[in-house]
């Protein structure tokens, strides 16, 4: 009652205005593209949705992103746990190193990855007869893991930090070896952060272009196809695919968010 009668602080009005500018910048840009496509050239959008190469590229994006997220989970959860629970020499340095992929320009990341995983690279050469990365599915996944794993690690680490170590101690005293305490107490309690981190990781993976395009132009993922069509045929040919990509990813994100929103139950706060 009291707050409704109070005049808002001038600074708050400025903040609200600036926040709206930011919000509109995102919404208008994306919505404009979608709406204009639907209004001016709906048949092109429908054609794109049934075009074999488009379907293939978008599914490849989704699938490679999923594999990259699973690999990031396996590698990121242990790192997140160590960073959340242990103090050790040069911890700050280790944390910064794990975050580097976020700040490196993605084309630079692509070049670095190609240097390591290319046919003559440090790892690419000895592995050549078993697995190829250049212009291959494995290359796409490697590039996606590199750029998106930090998002998962950071979110999961925050989740672990929120769990009172006393709960783990209690589990241990009740007879759980460390792995059981981790599996039955720590992991379920961090479920929401793991889920949120995985969504972020996957989102980042399927939106990656720069690093992927350098190590693997083919097979084409969604963003590469958009770029390829733009260069070869211009805006009108690439836009339907871009719109389709947006619609598919948004639908999946909203669905996953809705499914995982009930997980809040486990949280302390």
């Amino acid at each position, binding site marked *: 009652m009291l707050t409704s009668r109070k005049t808002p602080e001038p600074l708050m009005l400025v903040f609200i205005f600036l926040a709206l500018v930011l919000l509109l910048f995102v919404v208008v840009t994306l919505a404009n593209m979608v709406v204009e496509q639907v209004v001016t050239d709906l048949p092109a959008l429908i054609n794109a949705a049934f075009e074999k190469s488009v379907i293939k590229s978008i599914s490849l994006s989704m699938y490679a992103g999923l594999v990259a997220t699973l690999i990031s989970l396996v590698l990121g959860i242990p790192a997140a746990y160590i960073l959340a629970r242990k103090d050790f020499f040069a911890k700050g340095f280790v944390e910064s190193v794990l975050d580097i992929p976020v700040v490196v320009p993605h084309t630079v990341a692509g070049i670095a990855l190609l240097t390591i995983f290319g046919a003559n690279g440090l790892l690419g050469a000895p592995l050549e007869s078993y697995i190829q990365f250049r212009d291959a599915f494995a290359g796409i996944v490697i590039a996606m893991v590199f750029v998106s794993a930090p998002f998962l690690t950071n979110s999961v680490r925050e989740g672990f930090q929120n769990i*009172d170590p*006393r*709960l783990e*101690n*209690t*589990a*241990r*005293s*009740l*007879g*759980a*070896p*460390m792995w*059981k305490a981790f599996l*039955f*107490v720590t992991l*379920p*309690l961090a479920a929401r952060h793991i889920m949120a981190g995985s969504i972020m990781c996957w989102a980042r993976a399927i939106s990656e272009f720069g690093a992927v395009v350098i190590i693997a132009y083919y097979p084409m993922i969604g963003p590469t196809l958009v770029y390829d069509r733009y260069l070869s045929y211009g805006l009108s040919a690439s836009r339907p695919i871009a719109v389709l990509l947006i619609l598919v990813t948004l639908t999946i994100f909203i669905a996953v968010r809705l499914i995982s929103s009930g997980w809040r*139950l*486990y949280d*302390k706060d």
Partner: protein
Amino acid sequence: MIKIEGLHRNWKEFALKGIDLEVHDGEYFVILGPTGAGKTLLLELIAGFYTPDYGEIFINEKNVTVLPPEKRNIGFVYQDYSLFPHMDVRKNIEFGLHMRGIRDLGKVEKMAGNLNISHLLHRYPLTLSGGEQQRVALARVLLIEPDVLLLDEPLSALDPGTQDTTRRLLKKIHNMSDLIVIHVTHNQTEAQILADRIAVMMDGRIVQVAAANDVFDRPLNDRIAHFMGVENVLKGTVTSNIEGLTSIALDSCEIEAVSGCATGETVHACLRPENVTISVVPVKSSARNVFEGVVIEIEPMGALLRVKVNCGFVVHALITKQSALDLGLELGRHVTVSFKATAVHVV
């Protein structure tokens, strides 16, 4: 038996220094000390959550110093009970058995019945009151039949009424088995009521170990005396209770209090020293408890004085320096001590 020898552990700015302790079979042992004395850390070292820098810990003759917690067969209850928030009460209680690969529904039901939580089995911990959480935590820990029960400030998060019932429950649990209980607290009254023996801990060291009453009546030094001097706790038996006015027989005399305790019950009468009045001539007042005694100790405490009077039992009183001056108090002086029946808290 638990034996601790020369235990050291550095912990950030703090250190446990040279802890030696022996706790006997079936003993209710209280570690008493101010906040920040290192009591919880000591308990966590016994449990094996951390390893000592030096020193050894033996449980029943077995050196457990480097054993992981799950191999020590100890039960640990933290101050906030540490129930697993993502499991219902039944899953929480079953956890220890589950870890041992045992599925025994009968045992769980029986334990829940004993602790009066059968009706809570399907509930989640965050929906329970403090007392209920405490009983769930006790059920969970007792189900693994530990050799030692470690309790970290088990009463301090509870309201006074629940504290009384929980205190009785702890005593009952201890009496029913020959479990060793090590109970950590900063509350003197709690220690005196529950403990067989008390270890006083300050600044990471054990400064005195003695039978419960000895620590209060014969503290080794003035710091311990200061820390102990919060309440008078007198053990006695209820001889009558008429409409709440309770007579309690101590060793040498009888005092009156207001309580709901029944005749024949063994109780502790607690009296805060600031509720005790000292006078030099006999007075007529509404106070139900009036005793003649001799001043045996006077000790300054800031603006106040702590006066110990022997009236057959020792009463601690807290008075201002000005009152002491006006009354001409000195050692050996005969005085009258009085306190109201309503000032006595019976547990």
